[in-house]
């Protein structure tokens, strides 16, 4: 470096120029440090995200039927009946009124999987673990609603019965 002062001066200039250019070309919103540009959420149903399911949209809960075969490995089995009016509260778990090991013989329901007795830390309990209490987090009833998007999904080979 022959002339350190000149190079450092031109470097400072360049930085200032870049900063100036950068500042003017940035959109003003970015200057407010916190808010990122709002993302436009859109639902597949075309309704507002927060909107409730439309009432009387013509879909009906499926009629009671035998257990539904699974479509992929580790799939939580689907609920083959309506659960209208069924509640899972601190006081009472309607699902377990039929699906528990103490009740399934009388009700003819599928008994809850033994895997559900294990806690998060791997401890085996003598009934379902708290993390499995809210059945409808994984198990869902079916209705005759049309699929929202077309897809080419096919049942896992090993699970097809024919």
């Amino acid at each position, binding site marked *: 470096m022959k002339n350190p002062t000149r190079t450092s001066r031109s470097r400072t200039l360049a930085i200032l120029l870049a900063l100036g250019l950068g500042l003017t070309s940035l959109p003003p919103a970015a200057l407010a440090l916190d808010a990122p540009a709002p993302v436009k959420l859109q639902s597949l149903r075309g309704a507002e995200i927060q909107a409730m399911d439309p009432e009387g949209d013509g879909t009906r809960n499926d009629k009671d039927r035998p257990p539904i075969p699974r479509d992929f490995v580790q799939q939580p089995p689907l609920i083959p009946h309506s659960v209208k009016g069924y509640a899972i509260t601190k006081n009472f778990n309607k699902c377990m009124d039929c699906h528990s090991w103490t009740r399934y013989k009388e009700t003819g329901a599928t008994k809850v*999987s033994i895997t559900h007795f294990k806690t998060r830390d791997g401890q085996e309990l003598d009934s379902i673990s708290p993390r499995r209490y809210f059945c409808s987090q994984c198990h869902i009833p079916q209705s005759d609603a049309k699929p929202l998007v077309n897809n080419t999904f096919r049942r896992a080979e090993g699970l097809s019965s024919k």
Partner: protein
Amino acid sequence: MAKFNEDGFREPANFTDRIRLAGIGFIGMVFVAGIIVWGGFNTVLELTNREEFCISCHEMNDNVFQEYRNTIHYSNRSGVRATCPDCHVPKEWGHKIIRKIQASNEVLHKVLGSIDTPEKFNAKRLKLAENEWARMRKTDSRECRNCHHFEYFDYAEQGRRSAKMHQTGLNEGKTCIDCHKGIAHTLPEVEQGIGADKHGAAPEVFHPETKQPATAPAEPAKATATQDTTAK
């Protein structure tokens, strides 16, 4: 009978006539008074037998009524409803009066303020629900059967689960309330053997034993065999 003189005035009646007239008058008065008292009594009975009366106190309005509003007996596709007295007050006169006298006790408790907050209501709910279960069980769920005649159940139309449970259950001598608890309100704590003891309704209270005829036990055993394969 009354006699009339030439001027058209009635002659003073003799003693027996007076007695007879007084007698007829008295019976008439008793009759009219009877109608008024009876009518009034029945009017009160009917007024207190309407949903508006049941939910006119906030204990009922804030708790059980709100819960019931989300159920099939409040709103359904055909608009036929079951109101509070339909399920809670017998239709038949004698039973109705007895229930009304018991209810006065409940009103007394309201006036004394023993159930004046939702917390206190929920603390009492187990006791209240158990009373109602016991009452319905004793009457073979008479109030349900006022509307639902199981002799006319169309099992082809009912769901798989309903048709199966109704045919086996009712044959075993079970009654509607044995299986349909919590049909109109939030249930109290019920012991289901999950987590800590809730001091709730015991299993033998929630699903009471029935004396089973000899043929019944074969059915559940068969279900076990098929279900074992579906559970992981």
